[in-house]
Structure formats: C-alpha cells, structure tokens
C-alpha cells in the first residue's frame, strides 16, 4: 500500500496561499502575492499529477478494479453518536481525474491572470480569492462524505460570489454576484434538505457506505413513501436540485450568464471548467444511489440535462456578448453531461453514459477554458465584450485565432479534436437509452457547431472594423496557456478514458461508433458551413433571418423572459409583498398592541390618580360614601338572612 497522506497538502497549500495574500490586506506588494499564488498552485498541480500517476498506473487497482481509497480523515464535528462530519480525502477515479482538471485549469488561469489583471488595484485580492476558490474546489472533489461536500460546496459558492463581484464599484457586477449567490443558495436549500433526509434514513453521510453497491443499508428504507414516491427518491431529487443550481440547469440557470461580469479568467476557471461541473460531479459521486433507489430521480436528471442543452443552445444563437455566448454554450454542454449520467446504467457496457459524462467533463474543461481565455485575449485587445465591436481579428491576433479555432472545432465535435470523442460516447449512450433524448442531443450538436462558428466568424472574420487602436496579439504570458490548452484540446480525445474511469471501476473498452458518429459529424459540418455562409463576410442574410423569425428571435434573445419572471417573484412578491407586509404587521399590529397595553395602563392610572389627591375633603367624602355603602351592603345581607 502506498502512503497517500501527502494528499492533505493539496488542500493546505492553496489555503495558506489564500491567507498569505488576504491577511496583510493592501500592505503586500501585488507581485509577491501573484508569485506566491502561482507557485502554490504549481506545487498543487505537481502533487496532483503525481497522485494521478500513482493512482492510475501504480497502486490504484486491486484485482483489476480501481479502489476507493481514504487518503486522510479527521473528525470535524460530531452531531450524535452516529452522525458526524469528517474532513478527509477520498481517492477514486473521478476524484483523481477532477484533481488533474482543477489544478491544470487553475494553473493556466493563474499564469494568464498575471498579465490579464496587470495593474488592477485589487491584484492581491484577486489572487487571494483564486487561491480560496482552488482550495474549496479541491476540497469539494476530495470529499469523503456528503456533508464535507456541502461545506466546500458553500465555500466555492462564496468564492464565486467574491470573484464575480471583483469589480465591486460596478453596480452590474454587484447585482450579478448577489444573484449568483442567492440562486445557488436557494438550490442549496434543496441540497441540504436532501442530505438531511438521506441521513435520517441511512444514518450516515459517508460516500463509501452510501454508494456501496452490495450494501443493504441504502435499500432498506425504500418502503417509506411520501406523496407517491419513496423518501429516498425525494432525497435524491432534492440533492439534484443542489447540483442543478450549481451547474446552471434549467430553471436555476439564470445566474450563470450574469456571472460573466467577473474577470474573464475567472469565468474560464469557475464558470466554465470547474465549479459549474460540480453538480455533474455530485450526481456522478452519488450515481449508484440514484441507480439503486431513485431511478425516477435519475430520469429527471436526464431530461433536465437534455432540455437545458437544447434551451441554452437556442439562446446562444441569438446573443451578442462573446462571454454570454460562451456561458450559454457551457450550460448546454453541462446539459450533455447530465443527460449522459441520466441515461447511464451500472457496470460494463451499460455504464457507458457515466464514463461518457466524465470524459466530456474532462475534455470540455480543456476546450471551454481555452475558449474563455481566448475570449479574454480578444477582449483585452478590443476593450469590448460585444461581437459587434469585433471583426477581422485573424489579421491582428494570429495565435489567439488559431487556438480559438481549435477550441471551436473541439466543441463542435469535429474529429480528431477532443470534443468529438466524448460527445460521440454521449450520443451512443443516449441512443441506447431513449430515442427522444438522443434526438435532442443530436440536434444540439448541430446547433452547437452553428453558434460557435457564428461567434468565430464574426470575431475573427466578418467586417473590417475601424479600430481606434489597432488590436495586437496578447503578451506571451497570456498566449502560453492558450497554446497549452489548445494542445490539450487536440490530444485529450485520444486518451482511452474508459480504462481509467468507469461506473464500476473496471476497465471499459470503448470504440467510436461510426454509424452514429458520421451523421453527427455531417450535421455539425452543416452547422459550420451555415455559419460560414452567413458570417464569413458581412451579409444581410443573418439580419433577414432575424427579421423573419421576429417574435421567436426576440423571445430567445430575451432568454425566454425567465429573468423577468424571477425578478417579479422576488421583487414584487417576496420583497414588497411579504417582507413589507411583515414589517407593517410588526410595527402596526404587534408593536402597537404592546404600546396599546402601555396606553391602557396610562389611561387607567391617569383616571385613578385623582384618588391620591391629598385633599382631605375628598378623602372624607369617599370615606363617608364607602362606610354608608358597606353599611347598606351588610344590612342588606343581614335582612336576607
């Protein structure tokens, strides 16, 4: 057995780096905090690669099956004799894979930001938050139990909040950060209820116990039902709400497009490659439980994923902000991952969807981070987010252009780029499970190619802009991560992913299903060529179509008015309706009745205070009245007797 206890340093190093950059406040020289941040994440990345190597190639397997290994474990708080929260590190194929993804993308972003954020006033703060995020995200994937995951889940939420609101003097950034936090908080409310319900029936938070496929523990309480579904279905459904919130699944997706207010490298790291896939990771982590006791909930996962994939892709076709287009494409791709998990079975060939989902998560992280960093490079050059302000940039920014093209081809699913392989597996898995979901996935593949190349052609080809300052290629320190990620986008598709990650830890051999792949490629190419026809040169064709679609286009452009609905509910119903009336009720009913009691007391004391006037005549008069009264009373009683 190998000693894995060093894994704890993967958490400690970024946390120390956070404290180092955060505690001195503004006193620290910004370059120092940046260098410390980069150095710490570099060491984390090296540790992660070592871990991945020794886990996958040396000692992770026993009898041909990848084991779940507890690298370290500490009791954090005890709730009762049975329930407690541990903080630990769980190594299994997906957590090790996530370690590699997170540390790689985080490293790229740390390096890239050095130049991108150069000269910003909050440079040290920026690196502090990045370290905090990296720490939380690594803690999330290493979680040994669902409550630890929830803890770090909240922490990534707050780091995301802090980074979206990085430009804290900008009202739109504040609003976006608030929205992101509250929407995901709302989802976490479901998540927490799910955890509590699950723990109530199983008496454990522990992943290994929960997901033990041989255990009778999890299947025993199925009998308890609530409103027609077993309580565990409810629990798993509620947990999925948490995942859906973080992963921006419909209808909890509204925060993600607005989250693009944050600095672009942050969008690449948090809102494209790592944090937003936490929901997928959660479902994958709990996958055996879903499959064994809550297949209905799993069906919901599949359809939510499928619908979101379609919904987001449609909106992406209509947007004009480069980052928002990418945000919607992220939603759409995460929808794919959810869909793949939802259609998957367990073990062997049946577990194809599971493996495909993780594979897509992996490749998507690479090319989507590349897209965002490329977009950042473009924004850096033209100082605008709107694709209307861009055009013909291939002339000015050759390297950004080529790397962006590679990423577009990868996401469109053109071989031999990475996205092709993972998307193909998803399509195959969907095809075997459910034809409706397959057709959605297939259609979205074409749509993806269309909107990505719409973006590509409008930014790098299209009309010749009269730029005030001629845009120029970004500095080397920003280009380097682009090149590395482009290489990853070209090569990662060839990883025999099923050898490492599969639903049951056994090796799963996968091969390209050309009968599905070929039509998919054809459809994607159609999308690309349509986009090329419309946008390679400046034509009116796109405007004509927009006008022809009229209301439908406007609907999609306005994101189907969901934001307005949410705004109405929060502002008019909760704030002005409930909260204001409670404030009124408290002041005018409850408090007023307390004041009323005081008034009544005052009134009576005012009335009876005359009794102590000090006037002897008055006292004598009342004395007489009283004596006569009593006399009459007594006499009356005596007469009765």
């Amino acid at each position: 057995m190998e000693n894995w206890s060093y894994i704890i340093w993967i958490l400690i190093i970024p946390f120390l780096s956070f404290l180092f950059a955060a505690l001195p406040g503004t006193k620290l020289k910004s370059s120092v905090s940046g260098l410390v941040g980069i150095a710490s994440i570099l060491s984390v990345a090296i540790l992660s690669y070592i871990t991945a190597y020794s886990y996958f190639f040396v000692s992770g397997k026993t009898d041909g099956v990848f084991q779940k290994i507890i690298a370290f474990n500490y009791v954090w708080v005890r709730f009762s004799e049975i329930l407690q929260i541990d903080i630990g590190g769980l190594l299994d194929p997906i957590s090790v894979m996530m370690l590699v993804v997170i540390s790689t993308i985080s490293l790229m972003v740390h390096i890239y930001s050095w130049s991108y954020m150069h000269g910003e006033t909050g440079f040290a703060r920026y690196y502090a938050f990045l370290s905090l995020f990296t720490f939380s995200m690594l803690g999330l994937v290493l979680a040994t139990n669902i409550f630890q995951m929830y803890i770090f889940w909240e922490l990534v939420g707050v780091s995301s909040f802090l980074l979206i609101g990085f430009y804290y003097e900008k009202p739109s950034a504040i609003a976006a950060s608030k929205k992101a936090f509250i929407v995901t908080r709302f989802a976490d409310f479901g998540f927490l209820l799910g955890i509590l319900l699950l723990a109530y029936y199983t008496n454990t938070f522990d992943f290994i116990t929960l997901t033990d496929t041989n255990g009778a523990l999890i299947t025993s309480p199925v009998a308890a039902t609530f409103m027609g579904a077993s309580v565990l279905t409810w629990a798993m459904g509620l947990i999925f709400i948490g995942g859906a919130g973080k992963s921006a699944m419909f209808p909890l997706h509204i925060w993600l497009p607005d989250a693009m207010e944050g600095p672009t490298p942050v969008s690449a790291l948090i809102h494209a490659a790592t944090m937003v896939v936490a929901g997928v990771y959660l479902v994958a982590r709990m996958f055996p439980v879903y499959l064994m006791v809550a297949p209905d909930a799993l069906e919901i996962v599949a359809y939510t994923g499928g619908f979101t994939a379609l919904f987001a892709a449609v909106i992406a076709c209509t947007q004009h902000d480069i980052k928002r287009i990418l945000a919607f494409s992220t939603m759409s791709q995460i929808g794919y991952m959810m869909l793949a998990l939802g259609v998957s079975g367990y073990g062997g060939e049946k577990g194809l969807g599971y493996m495909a989902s993780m594979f897509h998560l992996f490749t998507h992280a690479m090319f989507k981070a590349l897209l965002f960093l490329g977009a950042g490079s473009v924004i850096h050059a033209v100082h605008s987010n709107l694709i209307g302000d861009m055009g013909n940039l291939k002339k000015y920014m050759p390297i950004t252009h080529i790397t962006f093209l590679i990423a577009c081809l990868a996401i469109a699913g053109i071989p031999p780029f990475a996205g092709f392989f993972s998307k193909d597996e998803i399509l195959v898995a969907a095809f075997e499970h459910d034809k409706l979901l397959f057709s959605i996935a297939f259609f979205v593949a074409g749509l993806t190619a269309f909107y990505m190349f719409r973006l590509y052609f409008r930014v790098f080809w299209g009309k010749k802009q009269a730029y005030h300052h001629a845009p120029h290629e970004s500095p080397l320190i920003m280009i380097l991560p682009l090149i590395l990620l482009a290489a990853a986008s070209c090569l990662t598709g060839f990883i025999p992913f099923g050898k490492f990650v599969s639903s049951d830890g056994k090796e799963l051999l996968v091969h390209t299903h050309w009968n599905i792949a070929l039509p998919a490629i054809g459809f994607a190419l159609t999308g690309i060529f349509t986009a090329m026809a419309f946008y390679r040169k400046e034509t009116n064709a796109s405007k004509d179509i927009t006008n022809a679609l009229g209301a439908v286009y406007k609907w999609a452009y306005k994101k189907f008015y969901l934001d307005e609905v949410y705004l109405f509910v929060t502002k008019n119903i909760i704030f002005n309706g409930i909260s204001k009336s409670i404030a009124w009720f408290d002041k005018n009913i409850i408090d007023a009745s307390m004041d009323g009691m005081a008034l009544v007391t005052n009134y009576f004391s005012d009335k009876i205070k005359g009794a102590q006037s000090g006037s002897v005549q008055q006292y004598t008069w009342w004395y007489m009245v009283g004596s006569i009264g009593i006399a009459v009373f007594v006499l009356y009683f005596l007469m009765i007797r």
Partner: protein
Amino acid sequence: MDILSLLVIIPILTIIGIVFCQTQKQTRIIAAIGMSIQLLQSLYVVWAYLKERSLGNTAEMVFTRDYTWFETWNIHYAIGIDGISAAMIALTGVVIFTGIFASWNVKDLSKEFFISLILLSMGVFGFFISLDLFTMFLFYEIAVIPMYLLIGIWGSGKKEYSAMKLTLMLMGGSALLLVGLLGIYFHSAPGGGPLTFNILEISKIDIPVNVQLFLFPFTFIGFGVLGALFPFHTWSPDGHASAPTAVSMLHAGVLMKLGGYGCLRIATFLLPDAATELSTIFIFMTGTSVIYGALGAIMQTDLKYINAYSSVSHCGLVLFAVLMLNKTAFNGAVLQMLSHGLMTALFFALIGMIYGRTHTRDVYKMGGLMKILPFLSVCYVIAGLASLGLPGLSGFVAEMTIFVGAFQNESLFHRIFTILAISSIVVTAVYILRVVGLLLLGPVKNKEYLSLKDAEWHEKLTGVVLIIAIAIIGMAPLWLSDMIMDSLEPIMQKLTSIK
C-alpha cells in the same frame, strides 16, 4: 480561592477602581485592564474545566461551592459550571472585553457609563455560574436594570421611549418568570422537608405533571421574552436602535442568551414532561420567530433594525432547537448562542463604528464604504458571511447542528417547521447581501465621506478579537461541541426517564 466567584469579584473590583478615577482616560484604562483580566479569567475557567474533565471528574457540575445566604427560605449562593455554562462564560468574557474597546471614545459621564456596563456584565457572569434559582434570578435582574440607564442616558434617537419599552417588556418577562420559579420552588419537596432553589436537587425529583404544565409556559415565555420570542420581540428593534454600541453588543451578544440558556437549563431540564407535551405550541411560536424575523429584516433601512430582526431570527432558532428535545438539537442551540453572540456583537460594534463616522444608519444614504473604510467593511463582510452560515465561520456549525438535530424529530408537525426554519438560510442570504451591496459596494454615494478615516487601533482590536473567536468555532468546532455534548447528558437522562 474559588475560580468561579472571581468572575463576579473582578467586575466589582473594577467598578470600585473606576469610582476613584478622575478622567475619562483613566476610567477607560482601568475598565480595559479589569475586563482583560476578566477575559483571561473566563478563558482560564474553560481551560480548567476541560482539564478537570480530562482528569476524570464526571460530576454533573464542577467547581461547585455552596454558601447559605438566607436560611429561612433556604436560599443559597450556590455556584458551579458544566460545559454549557463554561462556553457561555467564555462568550461573555469576549463580548465584554471587546465592548470596552468599542466604547473607547465615550465622553459624556464616562465613569458612570463604564460602571453600568461592567455591572451589567457582572450580572451575566453571575447568572451563568449560579445553581440556585433565586441567586440566578437576582443576577438576572442585576443585568437588566443597568440596561435602562445605559439606553436612557447614553442612547440615541427615541432613547427614553426605547429604554422604557425594553425595560418594561423585560420586566414583564421577569414577572412571568418569577411565578414560574416560585412555583418550581414550592414543589421542590414533594415528600416534605425543606424546599429548595437548587437546580441540581430539583432535577432529582419529579414535579407533578399538571403542575409542570402550569409552570412551563410562565418559565418558557419569561425567558423567551429575553430571547426575543415572537410575539414578544418588539423591544429588540427599538431597544437596539437606541442603545449605544457596547450596550447593543452586550445585549444582543450575551443578555439575549440568558433567555436561551434559561429555557434549556430551567424550563426544559426541570419541567421535562411539560416541555414534551407543550412543545407543539412553542415550536409554532419559535419557528415563526425564525422565518418572520428573517423576512422582516429584508426591507428594513436602518442597519440596527436589520440586525435586530436578524437577531430575532437567529435567537428564535435557539429556542426552536431547545424545543426539539434531543441531544443534537440542544448542542446546536448552545452553539448557536455562542455563534450568534459573537457575530452579532461584531455586527453592532461595526455599525457603531460606521455610525460614529457617517452619523447615519440609513443604508440608502451610504454606499461604497469598501473604498473608504476597507478594514471596517471587510469585517462587516466577514460578519455577514458568518451570519448567513458560511462554513469555516461559526454560524454554519451551529445551524447545521440544529438542523440535523431538528430533523431527527420524526413528528410531521416538527418536520414541517424544521423545513420552514431551514428555508431561513436563503432569506438570510438575501438580507445580508442586500446590506453588503447597498452599504459597502458600489460607487461612493456621498462625497463627504471620502475624508473618513478607517479603524483606529482599539476598533481594530475589537474586530479582530471577535473574528478570531468566530473563526475558531467555525474551523475547529469539535472540542467545543464535545464539551457541550457531555454536559447535556443529565438533561437527556431526565428527558428519557419520562418517556
């Protein structure tokens, strides 16, 4: 020398010291020295308690002392602590220590101010160490009375009204409480013999159930008023709004905790049958407090009102957890008292510091303070994050313990209210982020504020000490929750014995 009585003696000595001071500077230095010693002493008490336990002392209360005080009625000065009171003592030590530094610049009648403040804290310390109901009640009154003077003289706004309202409502609570306590006293010797006020002795006997049913509402509501139980919470917004900074800190930080502590240690421990039978109606009241306070806070514009309503919500959660009648929930209730005490003290301290600079508490009149007052703003954000339950800060541990505990109660009614209470985590996030957005972020609204100075050393000290305490509970809660959990054993035995 017994180390618990020192907790009462040190404040008295400090007060005597202050009486001989000539200037404001001397006064505050003496107060600071006295309360620093008090802080060290209260931390030492916790340490000594843990050491005593690790040496194998399993007595229900440790460091007990008993002096007869008034023989006819069998009133004793009986003291002793367990893990719960030790934790509360440490909390009080931290809050009074930081409270002194938060009122560093009180100029008017500073001598009288510090005397009242320290007297108040002495009452609180005395309350937590008492094992005798009568002495406990006495200390409780000692803590409440100076409040009237502190708000009425050094307050702001409608201070006379608020002081009167707060005192009358709390006194009303005391009246109910007195009925409850005397009722318990007169039933403390069912088999004849001398009546007793001693909690430990009363807990050994069983008060008849019909008597309990009569006494429980008096006791619970009596303490509950202090813990801002709906609908007896309206003293809190007005009282806090008018109170000077340190008084708000002490009041929300520790005085409201007397309510929760009393509900647990007296109402539930001594009247367990009634607690079980009547829990439904009180769950309704406290559950309403939680969600009502949170929703009420959303649209407030005065910083102190926001915090007062948030306290109603958080303290409601304490009482709510007590009524869940299981060990985990009790543990959560105590943790929540600690957590709320620290973070609300931090909040009120910061609000006082901000008010001292901008002379307004209206959130719409300020904005962009992050740029002008970075230290105070960052502290405010941390307090806010603690309040909305960010892991790593104290609020999370406390709330989660309560929720896990409350969820163990399988009655449907309890479950529904538990879910309602859990939904407050969303509402809390809404009002906290609203304040942070309006107050700290965004462009600077009022150009006059650009010349404001950030925190001075004593303000930094206040903020840092409280944040460290919050972070300690938040990051390493195990020792604390184990310490509390051990001490809950007698209460649990009493509860299970009746079932």
